């Protein structure tokens, strides 16, 4: 009793801060892949939320529109993504209340997210996400990414998580300026198919989001066609019989 009352502030605050830190992620989303095309940004993410090695949630929307000009996609801890969405809600609401006819563009939101992620990392309490931010404002397309430690950059094509290793080589090879909408979707589907084959936490249920000057459209969930009919799979060792 005396021990507790002697230093109440220190003990309580330490426990409090311990219980609110993200030590490890629990429910995670896997990669997000995005690219710039002629009219704007295309982003793809599957709808899986894994709980460790269980594919627990199969209808998680990991891409959301922000304001009029932006689209955010996240991989990593889903609860931290929901927190990020809440922060962005507050931000856009406050901006709307100013009522000055200007709305936040992708560059501003990217900058805000970078500051948030980096500051949380400095407090050893990171938001366990890799966020992909894309948008179009005044004819300018913008695509950027922020990781959980605050690394941020802008590029023509982005991939998080396993997509770093599997999708980035494909995008580096095949992305070009002025892709049409169909070519962009085909390229994204190519990347998502490879991820489906080779990432254990991928689900065959994905959405593709499109943002242009007109606005955001997120497609209905659909599945990719896969091919398993290789003769080596059917009869692996014809020579050993």
């Amino acid at each position, binding site marked *: 009793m005396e021990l507790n009352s002697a230093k109440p502030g220190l003990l309580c605050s330490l426990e409090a801060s311990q219980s609110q830190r993200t030590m490890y992620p629990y429910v995670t989303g896997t990669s997000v892949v995005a690219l710039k095309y002629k009219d704007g940004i295309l982003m793809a993410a599957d709808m899986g939320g894994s709980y460790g090695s269980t594919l627990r949630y199969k209808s998680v929307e990991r891409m959301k529109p922000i304001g009029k000009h932006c689209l955010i996609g996240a991989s990593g801890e889903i609860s931290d993504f929901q927190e990020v969405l809440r922060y962005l809600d507050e931000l856009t609401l406050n901006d709307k209340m100013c009522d000055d006819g200007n709305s936040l563009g992708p560059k501003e939101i990217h900058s805000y997210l970078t500051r948030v992620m980096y500051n949380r990392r400095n407090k050893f309490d990171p938001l366990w996400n890799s966020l992909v931010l894309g948008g179009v404002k005044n004819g300018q397309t913008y695509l950027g990414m922020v990781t959980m430690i605050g690394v941020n950059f802008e590029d023509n094509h982005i991939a998080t998580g396993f997509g770093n*290793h*599997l*999708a*980035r*080589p*494909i995008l*580096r*090879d095949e992305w070009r300026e002025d892709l049409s909408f169909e070519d962009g979707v085909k390229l994204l589907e*190519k*990347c998502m*198919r*490879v991820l489906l*084959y*080779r990432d254990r936490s991928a689900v065959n249920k994905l959405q593709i989001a499109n943002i242009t000057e007109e606005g955001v459209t997120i497609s209905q969930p659909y599945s990719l066609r896969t091919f398993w009919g*290789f*003769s*080596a*799979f059917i009869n*692996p*060792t*014809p*020579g*050993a019989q």
Partner: protein
Amino acid sequence: MSKVAMDVPAKGGFSFDLCKRNAMLAKDGVQLPPFRKTGTTIVGLIFQDGVILGADTRATEGPIVADKNCEKIHYLAPNIYCCGAGTAADTEAVTDMVSSQLNLHRYHTGRQSRVVTALTYLKKHLFSYQGHVSAALVLGGVDFTGPHLHTIYPHGSTDTLPFATMGSGSLAAMAIFESKYKEGLTREEGIQLVTEAICSGIFNDLGSGSNVDICVITKDNKEYLRNHLQPNPRTYVSPKQYSFTKKTEVLLTKITPLKEKVEVIQAGDAMEE
């Protein structure tokens, strides 16, 4: 009693005697010297007439490139080749050893070696060393039963696949294969796809680099295309060659032939003892 216990070494398998000593040294802060690893991209695929193997040519020792143009496609038999990733010494030694074993087996049976024979030799050896022989291999060849492609992991497990990649650049190369491979490729298409996959590893993985080696094996023929593609040439080479600054004077040029200083002993004497 104690004398006998010391003499006889354990028969076969890995001798774990020094592991305790190593663990103790590690605790005292002594670091093992880094192995020369082949941070690598190696690939193989089956095309309509046989097998194509491909590899990059960079060997790394930690962060340093130890060998800019090493050979990662090893000979096992006239119709079987093997790419190796992992510790360079391990892949060299294991493939050399199995190559000799296959040679002896060919003498014994009088027939062409089968790919599954090489596979069994390799997996038996690697399994008995419980993963300590750090060799990850892509084995490919054509025998009378057809073309075969296998991957072998350091612990001894194997897979039979239509296309395979191993090494640190395997993900980058696999991305290319998964999106572009189909059955029944022609020779040119196959070589093109393998080159693309290795280049993907070279340019997207830090452990792989330099040139592309290719080996095409068909039923009656094999072609080892060493440095088939060299996408990383030295971009600047001084046209003037290396020249001394003007202040350096060459004082004397004299050639001393070394042959006079060597005495030739009668051959045969030393060896006959």
